[in-house]
């Protein structure tokens, strides 16, 4: 149930909580009041890739809650707002994220870091057949050993310390393109 009273004082509620409530409300078909945050939430939900300003507007909202590992929790539907790459098997990805919502926060972190480490490589989200696993696919033109060296930096600088909340349901995949 959406707590509509909370909307009257948006400043009293932090951005990520508000955003999560909006998405919750949208999922539950509840009637909510209008606000800029609500507009952003609708934009994400209805036309997630429609405009750059939408992403810009929601950036602070998507900052989310940080836990001890730096993982941030946001709702599955927010994936369209933060994920800049393409998505294969979208329904399966969403299934997996619904089962392990904290993957959302890890995807934000992984995307930032992998984009920096593999600047020329497209990143693709992919779900497994069971809708359990999310793969972050890095399409790289590096050779196997060079790509592994770069990925080793990713593992040691962040992933090994952060992977816990994924419960083993998120992995990085290297795809070697020629």
């Amino acid at each position, binding site marked *: 149930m959406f707590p509509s009273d909370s909307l009257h004082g948006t400043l009293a509620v932090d951005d990520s909580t508000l955003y999560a409530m909006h998405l919750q409300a949208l999922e539950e078909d509840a009637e909510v009041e209008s606000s800029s945050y609500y507009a952003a939430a609708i934009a994400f939900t209805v036309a997630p890739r429609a405009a750059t300003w939408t992403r810009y507007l929601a950036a602070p909202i998507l900052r989310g809650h940080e836990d001890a590992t730096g993982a941030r929790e946001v709702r599955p539907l927010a994936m369209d707002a933060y994920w800049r790459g393409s998505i294969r098997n979208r329904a399966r990805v969403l299934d997996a994220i619904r089962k392990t919502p904290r993957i959302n926060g890890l995807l934000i972190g992984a995307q930032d870091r992998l984009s920096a480490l593999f600047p020329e490589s497209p990143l693709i989200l992919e779900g497994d057949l069971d809708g359990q696993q999310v793969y972050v696919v890095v399409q790289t033109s590096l050779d196997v050993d060079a790509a592994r060296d770069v990925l080793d930096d990713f593992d040691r600088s962040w992933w*090994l310390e952060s992977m816990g909340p994924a419960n083993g349901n998120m992995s990085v*995949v*290297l795809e070697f393109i020629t």
Partner: protein
Amino acid sequence: MAKETYTWRPADDGPEFEMLPVEIVRSEESWVKLFLEDGTVLRVKIVVSKVGRSIDKPIPGRNGEPLYHIQSGTIVVADVPKELYFTEGG
């Protein structure tokens, strides 16, 4: 350009195989987590860098299945409880 093959003998007293290098096109870089009775947590990842497939004969007794040869390493990262550390460093 045809790939250069190589020979490989898996066992000293076994047959020699002619191997064709096969490119890795996709690799899932998953970590396995092992929880040990002493409180240590090991995270282990197998890293395969090269793969070859036999082209002159199959694995003996396996209905024609070719033999695969991998060059691999293992990465191990240990989270060690403080009490297991030696009091003086090595």
